[in-house]
C-alpha cells in the first residue's frame, strides 16, 4: 500500500468522522422543528450539542486542509467545480455557528426565534447538500483533459445525486434522533424514540435504494460487504431504538454512517473524482496526489495528532455525559446580560 493509498483511506476517515459527528448535530438542528413542542424543548435539543458542535465541525476543516495537502488536484477540481453548492454550504455553516452562539445573547423573543429558524435551515441544507456532493463524486462528473470541471450546476442536480442528498438528510436526522434519545430525559426522550422509528424506516428505504443503485453501477465484492453492513446496522439500530436500548441504537446508527461512507469510498477507489467524459481524464489517487515527501510528513502528522485529538474530544463527551431535560435550563436567567456567563 503506497502513501497515496494510505491518504485515500485517511481522507475517507476524516469524512467519516465528520459525518458521524456533525451528522447527529445536523440532525439535532433539524429536530428543533420535528421534535420540539415548545421553546424550552428546543433549547434542550440545542444544548445536547452545545459544547461539542464546534469541535465536530473541525473534522470538515481538517478534511478540507488534508485534501489540499495530500490531493491538491482533487481539492482544486472539487471546490472550483462544485462552486455554488459549496458556497451555499459555507453560508449555512457561517450562519449556523453564529446562531448557536448568539441566540441566547438577547432576551427578545423575535431575536431568538429568528436564530432558531436559522438553525433549522442551516442544518437541513448542508445535511442534504453533502449527500448531493458525494453522489456526484462517486457517479463522476464532466472533467476535461486539464482536470477542470466543465459541467454546470444543473448537471450536479441529477436523480442519483439528489437521492444521495435525501439519504444523508434522512440518515443524519435519524442519527440525531437516536442521539437525542441518548442525551435527554423526560417526555422528549420518549417522543424521540417514536420519531426514531418513523425516520429510521424512511432512511432504510432511501438508503437501500441508493446503495443498491451504487452497487449495480460501480460496486464490487468489498462494497457489497459495506452495503450489507450498512443495511444490517440500520435495521438493528431501528430495533434497538424500538426496544429503548439507546446506547446501542446510537452506536449502530453511527456504524451505518461509517458503512455508507466506506461503501462510497470503496466504489470510488482508485479514482478520487471520475470523469464521465473520458476515463483517462479521471482524477485518481496517483495523478491527484502530492509528492512522496509531503505525504510522508502528513502521515507523521496524522499518526501523532489524530489519537490525541480523539482522546481529548472523547473526554469532552464524557465531561458532558449527563442527560438533560427542560428542568436543567434556567428560564430567563441567561438571556439577561447581568446573569450571563
Amino acid at each position, binding site marked *: 500500500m503506497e502513501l497515496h493509498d494510505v491518504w485515500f483511506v485517511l481522507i475517507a476517515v476524516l469524512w467519516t468522522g465528520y459525518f458521524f459527528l456533525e451528522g447527529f448535530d445536523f440532525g439535532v438542528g433539524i429536530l428543533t422543528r420535528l421534535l420540539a413542542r415548545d421553546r424550552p424543548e428546543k433549547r434542550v435539543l440545542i444544548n445536547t450539542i452545545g459544547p461539542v458542535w464546534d469541535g465536530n465541525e473541525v473534522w470538515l476543516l481538517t478534511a478540507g486542509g488534508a485534501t489540499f495537502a495530500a490531493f491538491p488536484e482533487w481539492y482544486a477540481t472539487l471546490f472550483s467545480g462544485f462552486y455554488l453548492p459549496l458556497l451555499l454550504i459555507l453560508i449555512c455553516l457561517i450562519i449556523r455557528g453564529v446562531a448557536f452562539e448568539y441566540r441566547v445573547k438577547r432576551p427578545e423573543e423575535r431575536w431568538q426565534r429568528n436564530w432558531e429558524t436559522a438553525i433549522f435551515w442551516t442544518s437541513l441544507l448542508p445535511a442534504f447538500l453533502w449527500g448531493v456532493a458525494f453522489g456526484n463524486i462517486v457517479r463522476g462528473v464532466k472533467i476535461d483533459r486539464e482536470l477542470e470541471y466543465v459541467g454546470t450546476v444543473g448537471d450536479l442536480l441529477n436523480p442519483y445525486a439528489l437521492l444521495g442528498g435525501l439519504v444523508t438528510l434522512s440518515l443524519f436526522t435519524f442519527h440525531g434522533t437516536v442521539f437525542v434519545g441518548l442525551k435527554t430525559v423526560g417526555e422528549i426522550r420518549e417522543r424521540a424514540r417514536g420519531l426514531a422509528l418513523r425516520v429510521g424506516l424512511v432512511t432504510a428505504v432511501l438508503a437501500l435504494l441508493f446503495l443498491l443503485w451504487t452497487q449495480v453501477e460501480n460496486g464490487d465484492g468489498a462494497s457489497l460487504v459495506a452495503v450489507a453492513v450498512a443495511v444490517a446496522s440500520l435495521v438493528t439500530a431501528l430495533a434497538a431504538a424500538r426496544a429503548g436500548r439507546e446506547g446501542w441504537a446510537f452506536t449502530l446508527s453511527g456504524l451505518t454512517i461509517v458503512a455508507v461512507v466506506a461503501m462510497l469510498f470503496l466504489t470510488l477507489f482508485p479514482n478520487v473524482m471520475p470523469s464521465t467524459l473520458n476515463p483517462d481524464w479521471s482524477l485518481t489517487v496517483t495523478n491527484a496526489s*502530492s509528492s512522496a515527501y509531503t505525504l510522508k510528513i502528513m502521515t507523521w502528522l496524522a499518526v501523532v495528532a489524530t489519537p490525541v485529538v480523539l482522546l481529548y474530544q472523547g473526554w469532552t463527551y464524557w465531561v458532558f455525559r449527563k442527560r438533560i431535560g427542560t428542568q436543567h435550563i434556567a428560564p430567563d436567567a441567561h438571556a439577561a446580560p447581568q446573569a450571563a456567563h
Partner: protein
Amino acid sequence: MELALAPETLARWQFGITTVYHFLFVPLTISLAALTAGLQTAWVRTEKEKYLRATKFWGKLFLINIAMGVVTGIVQEFQFGMNWSDYSRFVGDVFGAPLAFEALIAFFFESTFIGLWIFGWDKLPKRIHLACIWMVSIGTLLSAYFILAANSWMQHPVGYRINEEKGRAELTDFWAVLSQNTTLNQVFHSFSAAFLTGGAFMVGIAAFHLMRKKHIPVMRTSLRLGLVTLAVGGLFTAISGDTLGKVMYEQQPMKMAAAEALWDGEKPAPFSVFAYGDVDKGHNKVALEIPGLLSFLAHSDFESYVPGINDTNEALQEQFGPGDYKPIVPVAYWGFRWMIGFGMASFSLGLLGLWLTRKKFLLPAAHRTGEEEVPHLVLLKKPLGAKLTRWYWLLALWTMGFPLIANSWGWIFTEMGRQPWVVYGVLQTRDAVSPGVSTAEVLTSMIAFTTLYAVLAVIEVKLLVKYVKAGPPELTEADLNPPTKIGGDLRDADKPMAFSY
C-alpha cells in the same frame, strides 16, 4: 469594464474582503483568549472576586468575537480551491501542509476546549476549567503560527523545488517553511500586533466605565492590564516591524521601494513623510522627506544605497522576462503609513496612560488611590483636571479601533505590495485563478459573502455594545463554589446548568 469584471479582479476583491474581515476578529481572539486566561489565573490564585468578574466580562466579549472569527475562518479553508484552483494545483504540495497542520493541531484544540470552557463552569473543577482557556489560547497562537508560515512561503518561497513534469512546486524541506526568518518575523509582528489590539480594546472599554465611575474595581484592574498589554504589545510591534522591514528589503525590494514611493535608488536614501506621485511618469510630484532615515530602516546605517522602484523593475525584468513588476504604488505607500500611523498612535496612548496612572513611581502619596476609586491621571505632580481627564478617557474609547485599522492596512500593504506575484518570483496572481469558474459565479459569491458579512458585522457590534454597557456580571453562589469533580457535583440531579445556549 472588462478588466473590472474579470474573474481575477473579482477573485482578488473577494479574497481581500473576506480576509481583511476575518482578520478583524483574529487579533482580538488571540489577545483576549490570553488576557481572559490571565485574569482567570489571577482568580484561581488569589480568589479575589474582582478577577472572576473580570474573567466573565472579558470572556463574554471574547466569545462574541471568536464566534465570528471561527465562522469566517471556514471560508478561508475552502476559498483557495473555489477561486484559486490553479494556485491550489501549483502550490498545494507545499502550501497545503501547514493548513492541514493548522486544522489538525490548532483548530481541534481551540474548538474543543472552547466548548469545555463555555459549558464547563459547573462541570469542571476550577483548575481544569482554567486549563481549558489556556488550551484555547495556545490553540489560537498555534493556528496563527501555521497560517503565517504558509503566508510567509508566498512572500518568500523556500524549501521547495519546481517539478517541470508535473508543472508544480513540491515541498523538499518542511522545516525550512516553518522556521525561515520571514515566518519568524511575521509571527513575531502579528502576535505583538494582536496584543496591541487587545490592549487597546481593553483600555477603551475600561476607560468608558471609569469615565462614568462604574464597576470601578474590575475596570481599574482591566485598565492596568490593558495599558501594560498595549504598551508591551506596541513596543514589540515596533521592534518586529523594523526587523520584518529589513527582511523584506532583502526579499522583496520592490514592496519596500513602493512602500516609500522611492522611484529611483538613492544613497543615502531619505524616509518619505508625504508624497504625491505621478505613477505614469515614474516619479513623485511632491515629496517631504527625512534624509538618510530610509537607509537606516533598510540596512541599519544612514549611508547605504536603497534601490528604487524603477531600478528594481528593471532588475526583475532581466530576471523574469518582460513585464511590469510594480505593485499599485499609492496603495503600498499609504497602506504602509496608515499601518504605522494608527498602530503607533495607539501605542503612544498606552504609554501615556501607563505614565498617567502610575501607582507609586514618582507619584506623590496624596494622589494614590484605593481599589474602589477611579485612578487619578497625574501628569507631573498634580492630577489632571476633570476636563482633561475626561478627554483622556474619551480618547482611549474612540481610538480602541485604531489597531484594527492598522492590522487591516498591514495586510493590504503586504499582500498588494507583493503583486503581481501570488508566490513571489514563482507564480503570478493572474495565473492562479480558477479557469473554470465564471464571472457570474465569483460575483455571486462575492455579493453573498459581502452582504452576509455586513449584516453579521452590525449584529456583532450591537451585541458587543450591549454587553460592554452591561458591565461585569454579579457573581452567583454557583460561581463561587465550583465543582470538585469532573462532570459536576451530582447531588441535585435537577439543578439547572450554569450556562446553556
